[in-house]
């Protein structure tokens, strides 16, 4: 008996030693197995590490590249809800290691821009139009990202990635209701991807008229993946959902649902009780009156995400700007009630870490960014804190008939994180005047710096190449190849750099109508990473000790 025990103990020791040697020897360009985290369920993983090679830098400069795509409205200038424009997504669709771009359109076809490297793109038109949201999600779990879109006055469409840059449209069984915004994630913790959609009833009413009036309506739906189909559950009968997001609001490891509504309809939130059970909650004392975008990011490096939502408030008090806005603002006076929880301005919900939030948009200097659409968090200057990029502008033939082109022209705004809970505006060459709608922050050239793609309305889409100098970064692409959530949507990566815990989450989308790359970018400044903890969607964790800066880690769960 004692000999058997000794044999088992010896095998354990030997196995541990082998594992330790493998982990210790892994590094840039090599592959290895990863030791499980000490505190929670372990998950074995292997990784490859690839150098991120910074190109030339040029001070505080982003270089503008006009893209071969223009989102067109039905009329010029845009009327009614065409003014809301279309989204954009970016990720590696063809497996060449470079993020490709998919741009939505209303009156024309969507465009895929295949990234050929060196800031050249090959444009290919998709057989899809009238598009609102675009997200890149592996819905068939074959390891390739598919394209999923929502539509003007309609529902969800999916385009299955067949490899070699070809797609086929497939039916998403069970997903039959009108959808303007959407978000993907594993709500019931069964390992596959579920979906939440929100309708924009004002547009449905305008487009479908009596058909919508006498229909079962729309609203917010949860769709749980049941294997060969999705099972729908209606969460709300009405919505003006310009944005739907899946966020862990109460920090319990489960994705909760947040829907941002237009037209002073209160935003809606549901807490995930597990097993796909959602309970309405009201975690916010204040919210935007016309929520147009939601993005989440840990701006104060305390390990929990803050939430930023955009609304309409002029960013400048110049005579021209105020004069352009005043006629509209006069019509909004009845929404200005201090007893109401809603405000006509951007809001920043600062997570208190206990499931409650404190609205701090004004204190942070983020409350006004013009007619703000997509706002995205990202470390644009690689200084280890999250900045914010907001695209804005409005074209509306009815509302702004008194302006040239019926357009409010506003420069996009870059809010730079001061590190003390406040932000300041910078130009950095990002203050484009086009009427932006969707946007995505993505490292298009694998140089460790976040670039920006903006889908404008009635102007060509723009990619801003980040050539800012200084600051290191680290990137993580997580894969779970033998699961139904191959790109680990919902996973978090925590980079520990001594005093800071930099947390980033894999999400299907964010901002307004836009996707989010599954590769996470984390600016480090001049910090050295002590270790990285990956928390997979099922809660299991993997730790990588002392990872190298300026490196892309492709971590594959085994």
């Amino acid at each position: 008996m004692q000999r058997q025990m000794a044999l088992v103990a010896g095998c354990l020791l030997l196995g541990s030693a082998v594992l330790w040697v493998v982990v210790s020897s892994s590094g840039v360009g090599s592959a290895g197995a990863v030791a499980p985290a000490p505190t929670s369920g372990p998950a074995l993983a292997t990784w490859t590490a690839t150098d991120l090679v910074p190109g030339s830098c040029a001070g505080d400069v982003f270089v503008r590249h006009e893209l071969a795509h223009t989102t067109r409205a039905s009329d010029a200038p845009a009327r009614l809800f065409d003014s809301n424009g279309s989204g954009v997504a970016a990720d590696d669709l063809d497996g060449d290691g470079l993020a490709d771009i998919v741009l939505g359109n209303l009156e024309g076809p969507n465009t895929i821009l295949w990234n050929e490297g060196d800031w050249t793109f090959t444009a290919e038109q998709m057989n899809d139009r009238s598009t609102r949201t675009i997200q890149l999600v592996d819905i068939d779990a074959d390891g390739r990202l598919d394209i999923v879109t929502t539509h003007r006055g309609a529902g969800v469409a999916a385009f299955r990635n067949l490899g070699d840059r070809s797609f086929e449209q497939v039916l998403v069984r069970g997903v039959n209701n009108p959808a303007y915004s959407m978000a993907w994630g594993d709500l019931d913790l069964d390992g596959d991807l579920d979906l939440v959609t929100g309708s924009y009833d004002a547009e449905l009413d305008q487009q479908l008229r009596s058909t919508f009036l006498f229909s079962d309506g729309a609203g917010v739906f949860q769709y749980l993946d049941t294997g060969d189909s999705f099972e729908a559950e209606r969460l709300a009968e009405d919505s003006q959902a310009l944005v739907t997001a899946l966020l862990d609001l109460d920090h319990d490891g489960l994705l909760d649902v947040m829907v941002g509504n237009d037209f002073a309809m209160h935003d809606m939130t549901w807490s995930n009780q597990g097993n796909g059970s959602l309970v309405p909650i009201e975690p916010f004392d204040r919210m935007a009156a016309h929520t147009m975008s939601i993005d989440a990011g840990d701006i104060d490096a305390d390990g929990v995400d803050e939430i930023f939502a955009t609304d309409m408030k002029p960013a400048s008090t110049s005579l021209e700007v105020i004069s352009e806005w005043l006629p509209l603002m006069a019509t909004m006076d009845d929404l200005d009630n201090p007893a109401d929880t809603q405000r006509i301005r951007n809001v920043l919900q600062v997570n208190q870490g206990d499931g409650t939030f404190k609205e701090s948009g004004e204190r942070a200097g983020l409350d006004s960014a013009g007619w703000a659409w997509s706002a995205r968090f990202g470390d644009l200057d690689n200084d280890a804190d999250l900045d914010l990029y907001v695209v804005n502008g409005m074209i509306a033939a009815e509302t702004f008939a008194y302006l040239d082109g019926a357009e409010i022209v506003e420069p996009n705004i870059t809010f730079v994180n001061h590190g003390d809970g406040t932000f300041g505006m910078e130009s950095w060459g990002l203050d484009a005047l086009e009427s932006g709608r969707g946007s995505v922050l993505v490292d298009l050239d694998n140089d460790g710096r976040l670039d920006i793609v903006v889908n404008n309305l009635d102007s060509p889409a723009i990619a801003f190449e980040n050539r800012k100098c200084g600051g290191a970064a680290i990137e993580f692409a997580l894969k779970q190849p033998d699961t139904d959530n191959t790109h680990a949507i919902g996973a978090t990566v925590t980079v520990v750099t001594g005093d800071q815990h930099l947390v980033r989450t894999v999400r299907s989308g964010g901002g307004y109508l836009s996707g989010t790359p599954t590769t996470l970018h984390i600016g480090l400044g001049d910090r050295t990473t002590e270790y990285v903890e990956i928390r997979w969607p099922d809660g299991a964790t993997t730790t990588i000790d002392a990872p190298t800066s300026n490196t892309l880690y492709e971590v594959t769960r085994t």
Partner: protein
Amino acid sequence: MTLTFTPSPEPIEHTTSRSFPILDILHPREHLRLIAVSGSLALGSAIVSRVVFNWVLWQAVALVLIVMAVPATIKWRSDARCFGRAAAVAGALVTLQGLHTVEHVTQWVQRHILHEPLRQANGLLSPANSEWIHFLWNWSVMIPVVYLMSKGMRGFWGWALFAWAFAHTLEHTYMFVRYIQVTRELHALGFDDVTAQGLPGIVGQGGWLDLSAGPKLQMICGFPGITTADRVDAHFTWNTGEILLAIPAVHIFLRTKVDAFRR
């Protein structure tokens, strides 16, 4: 009805405390009946104008102020004879700034108790045109403050009142100029029915400091409300601050002046 009133040609001896001469100067004294009758008349006229002639509130309030201007002028002339011109001006300053503070208290109630929209929480008189009224008012306060300082209302409270009133007047001058400019811009866009009143000034939410201040002004902007208070709160603070500084400044000044007069 005919009101008869004969101002006293000689200084009048008072029964109120000498320790608080500001009470002496604010007291109606022999004009009590005139002020009471005028007040009743003004109030009655205002009610009739509102109920019978459907005047808007600011018109009724303006009527009250016009009617009350007569006894007030008589009273202040009497004060000038009793205590000297500077003392009369000091009394008028406290009275009028006090009334103006009532306007801002009303705005505060409209905003925070009645929950009216910011641009509609205009108080009693300001709906006429808040920018013109507050611009003229603040310069009307600034001039007597400077006059009283020239007559000796200095010291800590006098200088504090001067600084506060001057900053407040600058704020309204900035707002007034912008009001004129934005009105012109709106007119050029074809809007004659959209008001440019109620826009932020230098301080407060959306004000110049909030949106334009550079790093050098970070310390100033750090004070609570400097860049976050809405217009109602900001000007409630301006005006309550002004009256709270005016009272001790005038009190100390009058104690000197009245006592000197009596001596």
